């Protein structure tokens, strides 16, 4: 297991998960709000659509479906 922090709360994800997989395992489908405040989540799942952008360790615009989790990674979602 790999511990990540989702909005500050610890979550035990599986080693090798992507950020998207960890978020979904934690029951979170809403990954970001678009410019108009509408919720968006995982869509293409393969790095093409850029809908799944999240904030990881303070870095914005990270594709959740492509980035691998790391121990104590901070993932921030709305």
């Amino acid at each position, binding site marked *: 297991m790999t511990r990540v922090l989702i909005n500050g709360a610890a979550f035990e994800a599986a080693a090798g998960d992507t950020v998207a*997989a960890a978020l979904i395992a934690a029951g979170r489908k809403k990954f970001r709000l678009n410019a108009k405040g509408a919720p968006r989540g995982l869509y293409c*799942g393969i790095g093409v659509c850029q809908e799944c952008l999240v904030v990881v360790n303070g870095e914005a615009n990270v594709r959740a479906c492509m980035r691998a989790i790391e121990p104590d990674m901070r993932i921030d979602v709305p």
Partner: protein
Amino acid sequence: MSEPSAQPDAERTDLPHAERADLIVIGAGPGGLAAAARAAACGISVVLLDEHRLPGGQIFRRPLALPAPAVPDYARSIQALYRGDAVPDLSYRPDHTVWAISGDNVVYAAGPEGTRRLTAPHIVLATGAYEWPVPMPGWTLPGVMTAGGAQSLLKASGRVAGQRVLVAGAGPLILQAAAQLAEAGAQVVAVLDAAPAAEWWASAARILAHPSLAGEGLSLLARLRAKRVPVKRGWTVVQMLGTEAVAGALVAPVGADGRARRDVGEFIQVDAVCLGFGLIPSVELAALRGCALDFAPALGVWGVRRDPGMATSAAGVYAVGDGAAVHGARRAVIEGRIAGLAVAQSLGRTGGRDAAREMAALHKGLARLRPLDRYLASAFRPRTGLLDLAEDGVVVCRCEDVTARTVRNEIGNGARTLHEVKTSCRAGMGNCQGRNCMPTIARMLAAATGESPGTFGYPKPRPPVRPCGATGLSLAPASPSGNTR
């Protein structure tokens, strides 16, 4: 079609030297792996780049923590690379996203240590496909995703996208996705295939008549039956409902005219919807490199123009697999081997084997797959009724939040090219570079003008065609040779 450039990228003195190889393969799916394996077997130095962490591409996605399973027979030639065996002369670089190619074959790849430049006289593009976006009310809600995306999530991490899942679309991939999701513990409430029953059974008969495909098709149907997943032919989803995430879907039968009959629609409660209406080749790197593209009217998508040896119109550049034309993994493997062998032939290094005979055998293999090609072309064709679902209030360009109404207004105001629509309302100017909205906008233009969607060209890509990291852009190629079609 290369634009003349002041200075070839390979000779830039303001940057570290570009690493050299005989061949660079972009994409480690079945097509790219087959090309890399074939060329490396001839002693050709190959660099294989892929943005995922493991080889295998979309069909053979797997968890990082587990050993690679055996691949099906048709993919035996890629088993060693898929397993991660070291192969002489081959350097596999996972986690590298190619975001540009210059007119003189310098490849820009963003990896964990930033962007690297690599160059080779030969490049094989094996970039695969992505799912056809079908705008409809509610399709931007979290929990609504592509069937392939749900499959990738499941195959790579064992996670199911929801508890009560609706799978809808057309063709074989939705059936596979539904079977896998059900076997992983999701309750798949239904698979809706937009093909009417008569079309569906005619296609099925064609597949069943093909010895090597029949087994796969039958076992898929048996798996769905075992999990009691209802398959409804001639039905489609027309709307998703929810506020923070999807909570339900409206489904409806497809009428004889191909249009969904909302008046007799039904509501289903779900927490995930997986959509799969077909695939679009990822041609952006080919277009950026200046390879000629062709519009396939029957499929409604752009593909890469190739000769029988998989060579594109750009010198030294080959294209294989679903990234050139969507024909599935079996064909991708054969095309990859053809390209790998063609590179060896052009370098005069076929290793003493009878290359001409091998090439002929590979082409025979392609010919044997024609029934599958025809089935996919029919299943994945853009269906008449789908565009109707993009009602005025529906978001067409997800990145810039542009609605169908805005696009139709711009067309009403005289926009006649994809570029004009783009500059007038920002559709296609966002992060995905129009990959998600341009196919729909081309169809909207076609509907308004009576012309083929191909008339409106393929929008010229700009680097970075994929995310290049914080420092990448400062290295941007001096001579991207864009394709303007």
